[in-house]
């Protein structure tokens, strides 16, 4: 069954099987994409658990949350792989994973590895004034952007918060006209020009396939 976005934001997702070969400890914002890749590729050796996506609102809490999950599950799996990018931890998550002896996704953000880390870096200068949303973030726009930024309570702050941006780019993992329309509406609400770029699963697909 497809987990719902609010659950993924607030509580995450426990592993279905308690034992197995490889456990992916992922951000809840990546659950749909990982499950889609797992189903499409028949990765039965891979088990997924997700931490609440809302940890992104306090990136400094991510390393401790990942460590707790690794510690709890490491005896039950042959290997653990952390499906987070740096995600605003300033290198602390990478350092923690290294100390724990587990690998993690390369890249600064999930939207960077969906876009392709190399391509994302190459476009950095041209897209300095771009605000990115993935499919998940479009669906959870209010929970991750509108409410945490206080725009529900203080819409007058919009230009203080987003005035330096020029456009919103929806880095789309799937072809979904309804989601596309919602992303365009997010751009309108922020006063930004809208663009859409289809990325598919980007580097995530190749990296997870590598785990074998």
């Amino acid at each position, binding site marked *: 069954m497809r987990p719902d976005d609010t659950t993924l934001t607030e509580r995450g997702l426990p592993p279905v099987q308690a034992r197995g070969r490889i456990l992916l400890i992922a951000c809840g914002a990546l659950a749909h994409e990982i499950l889609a890749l797992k189903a499409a590729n028949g990765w039965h050796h891979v088990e997924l658990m997700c931490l609440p996506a809302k940890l992104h609102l306090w990136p400094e809490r991510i390393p401790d949350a990942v460590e707790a999950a690794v510690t709890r599950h490491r005896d039950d799996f042959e290997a653990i792989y952390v499906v987070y990018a740096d995600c605003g931890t*300033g290198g602390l998550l990478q350092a923690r994973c290294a100390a724990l002896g587990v690998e993690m996704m390369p890249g*600064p953000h999930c939207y960077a590895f969906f876009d392709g880390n190399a391509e994302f870096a190459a476009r950095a200068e041209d897209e300095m004034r771009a605000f990115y949303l993935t499919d998940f973030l479009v669906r959870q726009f209010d929970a991750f952007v509108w409410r945490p930024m206080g725009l529900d309570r203080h819409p007058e702050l919009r230009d203080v918060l987003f005035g330096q941006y020029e456009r919103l780019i929806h880095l789309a993992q799937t072809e979904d006209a309804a989601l596309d329309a919602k992303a365009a509406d997010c751009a309108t609400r922020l006063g930004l020009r809208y663009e859409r770029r289809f990325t598919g699963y980007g580097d995530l697909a190749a990296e997870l396939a590598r785990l074998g």
Partner: protein
Amino acid sequence: MSDEDEIILSDLPDDELVLQMHDDLYDGLKDEIEESVQILLARGWAPYRVLTEALVAGMTIVGKDFRDGILFVPEVLLAANAMKGGMFILKPLLAETGAPRQGKMVIGTVKGDIHDIGKNLVAMMMEGAGFEVVDLGINNPVENYLEALEREQPDILGMSALLTTTMPYMKVVIDTMVEKGLREDYIVLVGGAPLNEEFGRAIGADAYCRDAAVAVETAKDFIARKHNRLGAAAG
């Protein structure tokens, strides 16, 4: 509080008015802050006293509650906007009355980064604390910083970055300062959401400041140390 209990600011004695200003800053009430600043000035308060006892003290409470997770970015921005209203009235008067100067800071967001909310808060709090601040804005290549250091001769260089991808540029700036033999002439403070103390040390900054209130305290501390060193050298 009901509407019938509306506070008449001009009826409050000085001590209560200052406490009310702390509350009004906390609630981001710009009009009330501007009115209260005018009231205190009309009562003969020196502009510097209004600044420190009413505005800076009030923003320090806001800063602490932000650090403790009681207030969030939108509330801090509204408080900052209210303080800005008060500062706008006080700034010309402070210049006229020769208020004490703590030092001078050049500050800017690094190349590739357009985020300026944290930097603006730091700049405003530093001004409130008596520092002269030269704000270079966003997306600054190393040349901008070096030109500003040469032109402004500040005590402090402040750099800000919000992105994991742009924060390494701070090291480019510091390494260039080292190459040119300039590094020891300035106090270098860095800040921004993804940074941490370890990163600050690793790139050769003097300190990482986790928020605007910490930036002010750190800057004052370094300036005091600098003066002590100069005093000792002269003695």
